[in-house]
């Protein structure tokens, strides 16, 4: 890992930014004890990581090369068979496509809504109290646990529900739309629910970013005769760029792991219309009791996540 440098005048925010500490070696006699001290402080963490992370990852990779793991006493080494089975399963391909759509659309919409709301909230024309009130309302969707979001939208989107009534009154839809059980509508609908529940995270970070942009940059742009749109293009967006990229990568990682929302709204259905990598990997062991193939699928998901994480860490290093 390359050494990252701490920008001057900013408090370090991450463990990765620890400034060099003078080695504490005041009394020579306590040499070994001193050297062991930090490891003693770290030991609970290290034990937990070994048990909860290292061992499970080794186990799941191991499982993925055997058949009938966990459910049977005897299991045989089958090489890459489980992987072949996963990668040639048309449902897996469908899950991959669905996850791609779900993640792509969610992240783009989170960004667009988050930015729009952050710009509105940041308007200098607002009184402080009005701003605080609106900000509270805008953050609300993010404060509900996914289970609550799921049942709430199942009620709102019920064929007899208030969404159909409202859209019907506007003449936008005709009759009782089956938002979550129509195979053509289910995927866009769960994506919409995810957009509703996730944009505040973007918004809060972008709002903090907007407030950190030096005012004199706008002054300079105005002196040069830049319009509001030109100021946005040439000052606001470039200044927010690092935050936007970090947030987008994080959002891709989190959204691709979304399970509870899908599981509680459609369960991956109707048929495979909303099957995601997470629900696919969950069903194999806990509905079909195939832990071996599920392990192969879990390892594929892990590999994809690691690629994203490496991208994220690279971007963070470049920022420092």
């Amino acid at each position: 890992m390359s050494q990252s440098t701490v920008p001057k005048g900013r408090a370090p925010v991450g463990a990765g930014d620890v400034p060099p500490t003078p080695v504490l070696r005041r009394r020579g006699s306590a040499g070994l004890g001193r050297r062991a001290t930090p490891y003693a402080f770290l030991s609970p963490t290290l034990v937990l990581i070994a048990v909860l992370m290292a061992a499970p990852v080794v186990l799941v990779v191991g499982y993925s090369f055997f058949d009938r793991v966990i459910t049977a006493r005897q299991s045989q080494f089958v090489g890459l068979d489980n992987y072949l089975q996963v990668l040639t399963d048309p449902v897996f391909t469908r899950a991959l496509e669905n996850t791609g759509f779900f993640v792509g659309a969610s992240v783009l919409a989170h960004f667009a809504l988050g930015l729009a709301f952050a710009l509105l909230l940041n308007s200098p024309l607002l009184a402080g109290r009005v701003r605080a009130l609106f900000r509270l309302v805008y953050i609300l969707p993010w404060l509900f646990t996914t289970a609550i979001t799921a049942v709430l939208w199942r009620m709102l989107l019920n064929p007899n529900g208030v969404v159909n009534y409202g859209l019907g009154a506007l003449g936008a839809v005709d009759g009782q739309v089956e938002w979550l059980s129509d195979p053509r509508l289910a995927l866009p609908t769960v994506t919409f629910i995810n957009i509703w529940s996730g944009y505040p995270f973007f918004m809060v970070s972008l709002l903090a970013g907007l407030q950190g942009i030096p005012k004199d940059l706008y002054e300079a742009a105005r002196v040069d005769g830049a319009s509001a749109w030109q100021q946005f293009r040439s000052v606001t967006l470039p200044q927010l760029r690092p935050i936007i990229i970090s947030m987008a990568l994080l959002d891709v990682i989190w959204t691709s792991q979304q399970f509870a929302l899908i599981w509680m709204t459609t369960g991956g259905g109707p048929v495979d219309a909303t099957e995601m990598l997470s629900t696919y990997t969950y069903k194999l062991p806990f509905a079909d009791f195939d832990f071996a193939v599920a392990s192969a699928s879990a390892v594929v998901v892990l590999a994809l996540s690691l690629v994203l994480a490496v991208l994220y860490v690279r971007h963070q290093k470049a920022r420092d």
Partner: protein
Amino acid sequence: MAVLDRAATGAAAPAPQRRPGATRRRQERSHRILVLGGLLVGACFAGLPVLWMLSSSFKANSEIFQSPPRLVTEGFSLAAYTSIFSDPTKLRFFVNSYVVAIAVTLLTLLVSLLAAYAFSRYEFPFKRSLNVVVISVQAVPPITLLIPYFGLVVGLGLYNTYPGLVLTYLVFTLPYAIIMMTGYLNTLPRELDEAVKMDGAGPLTTLWRILVPISVPGMVSVGVYTFMLAWNEYLFALTLTRTTDMRTVPIGIQLLMGQHSYEWNEMMAMSVLGAIPVLLLFAFFQRFFMGGMTAGAVKI
């Protein structure tokens, strides 16, 4: 609407012999109306579903899908809430959630404080590598861990118990807690603990007597965020518990969906009650909350 109309006509009306500042002021006013209009549309998008949840929790179940829909109905009552409070099975969901979330929060604070102290105040071999290990733990998706956890938790005899949940939750609360606490300790001047060490105090005494008391804001940030993550957790709670009396609130809400018919009003009441702890934490610790949220996001 009236305000908008007036603004529109006002802007369009010819204004002879206007003072130089007047156009500017007029422009500013129409701009403000645009901003407020945008904010109101957004607030409806964000807030109306939540308002409908609250309103539905006071309805009779038969009125949930009445047409035309109404915010306050004839059947307005606290029946859904009293039914939850008088049912030990449903109350148990809340007890379970509180027990697990509080235990996870306390353990996370303890373990992360110790680790953060080492990262912040010591230089030692493999420090960077260990740091990278802690950070990379966050990149592993929960669904990947689920299969081995199932075997592990059953093997340790922790299936369907509180310790099984608490232990597994630590895997996703610890990494960012350590990162946040280290960041916080780094902002505290080293001279403080150096002075105490000169007096011959051990590292634990230094941590406990000097750093802990002044780290309270950092610990509140970490604690609030941890509690929320644990309170909201779904996947492990679904898989690592089995009996109804061990289920947490998120699973309990789902269980209401399965039984006999859908008791929508009770599900909404349960959602309101389930959201209250997080809403209260947010209301009281908003500043810490945002700090935690963005700090967690800045670095994995």
